[in-house]
């Protein structure tokens, strides 16, 4: 029964997923930042055709990434995200509407989304179409970590158009293709990050200045993945994503996952992910002089970079016969190690004159570890 319901979630769309409640803990540590996250989620079917879901997520950030540390004090912040989702099933079509609100001291984001999912061709194919509208308010904390003084610097609007097709190909193989186009307009820069330019009058050999981004941005991403049931009870997944945008960034993502259950109690999963991107056309680690071009960025996200993730996950299922209102429960632990290498972003925090002249500092790299632990109860 449970397996049948999971099939519905993954491949067809004519029964709503089971009731579920989750509590979630996460910790990210790396690159000078520690982020601890807590989350609670509950979803319930009010009728066979109508379900509601609510989620609350809180991230606590301490420290700051290198390009913030190069110019500012250590940061403490909190991000609180609330979301609500309504799902309505009519025949072979599921309609989903959701609202997400994310609030930080210096950043407010609100997103409204709508999608529909249609099962067709004898439930071999599921087509999903979606649209979302996001409004962001961007601020800058000019105070300290403990006594913030936030100045609101701008707004940004985003629209997301999504399409997806999931297809059963054989009795052992399923495939999925997703396309997402996102358009942004407004204040799109990160106010905490700066460019640097050569300046003989400065003892460091360079000076900092504000980034200047275009006020529009459109990106297109296509992801293709396939999952194969091996001759023994295990599954392997292959994934590729291509990304391109109007800022000149081209990204390629490759991922392989292996899932191996033991009986109905344990599921072990291992994954390997490699990501590589080229720099934005207006990115430079070191500009020759101030205002040397119309648009300027030194945000590490827009640099040429690659990263490699190795991850492992284990899920333990308990209460196979249920208890009170619960049909079963699972507890899951997940750990990922990510190595980030920047190909044209230099470490100016730890290396400087007289040993290193501007532009000769070692390239920046760091490793991060992500821990996740969560309890899921199905009812």
């Amino acid at each position: 029964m449970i397996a049948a319901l999971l099939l519905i979630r993954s491949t067809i769309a004519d029964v709503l997923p089971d009731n579920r409640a989750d509590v979630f803990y996460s910790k990210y540590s790396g690159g000078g930042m520690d982020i601890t996250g807590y989350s609670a989620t509950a979803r319930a079917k009010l009728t066979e055709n109508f379900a509601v879901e609510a989620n609350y997520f809180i991230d606590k950030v301490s420290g700051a990434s290198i390009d913030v540390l190069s110019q500012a004090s250590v940061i403490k912040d909190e991000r609180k995200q609330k979301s609500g989702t309504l799902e309505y099933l009519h025949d072979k079509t599921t309609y989903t509407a959701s609202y997400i609100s994310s609030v930080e001291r210096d950043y407010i984001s609100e997103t409204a989304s709508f999608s529909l999912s249609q099962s067709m061709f004898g439930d071999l194919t599921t087509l999903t179409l979606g649209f979302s509208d996001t409004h962001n308010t961007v601020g800058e904390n000019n105070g300290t970590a403990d006594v913030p003084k936030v100045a609101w610097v701008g707004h940004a609007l985003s629209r997301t158009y999504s399409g997806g097709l999931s297809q059963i190909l054989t009795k052992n193989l399923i495939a999925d293709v997703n396309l997402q186009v996102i358009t942004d307009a407004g204040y799109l820069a990160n106010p905490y990050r700066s460019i640097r330019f050569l300046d003989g009058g400065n003892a460091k050999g360079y000076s900092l200045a504000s980034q200047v981004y275009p006020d529009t941005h459109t990106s297109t991403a296509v992801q293709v993945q396939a999952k194969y049931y091996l001759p023994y009870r295990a599954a392997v997944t292959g994934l590729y994503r291509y990304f391109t945008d109007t800022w000149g960034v081209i990204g390629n993502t490759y991922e392989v996952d292996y899932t191996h259950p033991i009986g109905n109690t344990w599921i072990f999963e291992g994954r390997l992910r490699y990501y590589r991107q080229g720099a934005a056309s207006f990115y430079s680690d070191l500009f020759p002089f101030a205002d040397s071009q119309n648009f300027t960025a030194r945000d590490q996200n827009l640099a040429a970079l690659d990263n490699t993730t190795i991850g492992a996950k284990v899920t333990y299922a308990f209460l196979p016969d249920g208890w009170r209102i619960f049909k079963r429960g699972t507890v899951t632990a997940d750990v990922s190690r990510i190595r980030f290498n920047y190909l044209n972003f230099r470490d100016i925090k730890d290396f400087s004159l007289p040993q290193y002249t501007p532009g000769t500092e070692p390239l920046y790299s760091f490793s991060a570890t992500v821990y996740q632990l969560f309890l899921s109860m199905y009812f």
Partner: protein
Amino acid sequence: MRRSSILMLGALSGTLLLSSGCSLQPWVKPYERDRLADPIMAWDRDAISSGYMDHIRESREGSRGATGGAGGGCGCN
């Protein structure tokens, strides 16, 4: 002229696809889908966890999208 030809070709392809789709018989019968129904074949068993990982990546990479949603916030720090 050229644009209208492309539109006509698109409409014709769509019509052919839909008409052939309606007569398609499922080549994997419902009783042959027991392996696909195994939890290990689910695309995403834990949406909160994958959404969290997407958020981490989108805060550190130039790429975004086509993975199933990553929530809000800027990851500015």
